[in-house]
């Protein structure tokens, strides 16, 4: 692992998120260095997904605090600008865009990320490479984006996009949910492949099981809009054994977890 003397790859300082006037995320501090994989774990309804979408710049959310990528403040940027700078959000529920093929979408996304019109031949090769890496059937390319895809297919496509777009930091929101064990292995392999000395990953998850396949450097427990505890991989195992309630009891401000 490389030493990091520069500013951390991705940092959050006192990030607060309100949706329709209600505060959901209540002050988050987070620091992800290049080469690190972090797990953000918490019960349903704790605000994990809201945090992930807010970091990407969801237009419906009011966000305060600092969000920095390599020291650069992102808060004022539109989601597409953040994406072109290297932030990636893997969606818990990827959105269908009927009539738009996976291939045409991916080419537009890759061209946007690279800031140039990626030639068709070069794009085809890169897409095929990413398909192969994730055992994605060839017919994916001609299908309409997430339209009629099964849950597992959608998640594979998310990971595939991450591999193609080569983000600096990937925020993966419940990418492991709704997957059978084979799909989980494929998706985990994709996450490990995307991980590298220059990349940071934040795995947002409800369950410990993906952490059997992806070794995190840090684990954060997220409850009622806050990180209530941070630790190493052992914290994930403790959550697996004891659930979240003991942490709820230990933190007086936390609401009851689900």
């Amino acid at each position, binding site marked *: 692992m490389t030493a990091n003397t520069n500013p951390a790859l991705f940092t959050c300082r006192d990030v607060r998120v309100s949706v329709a006037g209600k505060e959901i995320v209540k002050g988050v501090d987070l620091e992800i260095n290049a080469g690190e994989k972090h797990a953000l774990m918490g019960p349903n309804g704790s605000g994990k997904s809201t945090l992930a979408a807010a970091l990407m710049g969801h237009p419906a959310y009011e966000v305060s605090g600092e969000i920095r990528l390599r020291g650069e403040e992102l808060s004022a940027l539109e989601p597409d600008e953040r994406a072109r700078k290297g932030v990636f959000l893997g969606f818990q529920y990827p959105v269908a*865009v*009927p009539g738009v093929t996976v291939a045409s979408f991916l080419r537009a996304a890759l061209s946007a*990320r690279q800031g140039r019109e990626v030639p068709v031949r070069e794009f085809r090769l890169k897409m095929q490479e990413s398909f192969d890496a994730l055992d994605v059937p060839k017919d994916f390319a001609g299908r309409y984006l997430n339209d009629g895809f099964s849950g597992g297919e959608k998640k594979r496509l998310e990971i595939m996009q991450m591999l193609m777009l080569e983000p600096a930091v990937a925020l993966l929101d419940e990418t492991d949910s709704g997957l059978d064990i084979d799909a989980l292995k494929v998706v985990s392999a994709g996450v490990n492949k995307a991980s590298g000395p220059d990349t940071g990953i934040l795995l947002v998850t409800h369950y410990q099981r993906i952490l059997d396949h992806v070794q995190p450097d840090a684990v954060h427990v997220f409850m009622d809009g806050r990180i209530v505890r941070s630790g190493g991989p052992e914290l994930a195992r403790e959550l697996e054994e004891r659930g979240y309630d003991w942490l709820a009891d230990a933190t007086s401000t936390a609401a009851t977890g689900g």
Partner: protein
Amino acid sequence: MADRATVDTPSATSTRPQLDAAAVTEFSRDRGESASLATWRARAATVLARTELPDRVRHLWRYTDPGKLLPGKLLAATTDSGAADVAIPDTPAVVLVPGQPPRLNAAAESCGLVIETMHGGGDVTEGLGRAVPGEHGYFEAMNAAAFDAGLVVRAPRNLDLAEPLRVVIPAIDGADVLPRLLVIAETSARLTVVEDHVGGDSGSVVIGVTEILVGANAEVRHVLVQRWENGVRGHLTQRAVLERDARFLGATTGLGGAMVKVDLGAVLAGPGARSELVGVTLPEHRQHLDHHTVHQHTSGRTWSNIDFKAAVTDRARSAYTGLIRIEKDAPGSEAFQENRNLLLSERARADTIPELEILTDDVSCSHGATAAPVDPEQLFYLASRGLPAAEALQLVVRGFVESTLCLMPADLREEIETLLESRLRRIGGAA
């Protein structure tokens, strides 16, 4: 824009252009038309004289004021100035301009179709008015009495036309045109006609009628391209009549003009007939584009489908009314109709009324209509992959019209997409 206070009252009759039977007969004689056509026109003039402007209370005209589509002076003997500039492809094509013989290119001369003017002295009344009689309505009666650019296209029995015939109909700057097409596909003939409406300015009015007679086992594809310049007003009526086992595909792109009403349809008059009407319209700025579709099943064992999409931006407006009518003597008919509308701005408006009139049992019908803004979650998803807002919006709209484009003639798909593309590229821009 329309004066809201007058929306439900008939337009003032004083603005109706005057036309009497004697003037019509004289116009016809001046052109050297056949006596039978002169008689036919004179009869239409009497129909026009007793026909009121369309009633706004009826669904068909609820959204558009017919008074705003009226031409100025009828029988003005317009001759064109700018139509010579129209680009002609190498494939069969004909340019239709009032006061001039139709200009056929070499490919049109030799393609096997019989193409003739209605103003040449030959008896062209056979089949004329069968699909769109003067009694169809006010604008149709006006066209029948006073059309000034008439063309008959006949596909002889068993002809299989390899390339589409393009009929270019230029609107004329500051003037009116009343074009009339009669397309006859004889038994087992196959052809594609592209009716291409181009040109014009804010002083142009076009009142067009297209009749298509599809004989037994024949197949006609009719592609209506409406790409007038800004400001043109117009009313276009198209009807096909399908005999036994005939097939019809009507494909429409509604792009140009300021205020336009297009009335499209087919009558399924023989068992085994199949008709499909597909359309895409993309009104922008302050355009008012109104489309009506009709599938009338007069024979049993017939099938029809309608798929019409509108994506509306700026302060533009789309109106769509669709009617499926299954007559009493048409058991075993199947008819489907779908209209979807995408609203791309706060002030864009799309109205839709799908209607069913079913007078028999033993039919299978469905219809549906939706109008909704673009899903913001779709835009966020695309943005999260780096696509700027305008590009994301364009992608969503392309996807929206894709399933309808798929139903259009494959060999013309590239041309249709190119037409739409220049329009799509303006979406999400500095509107």
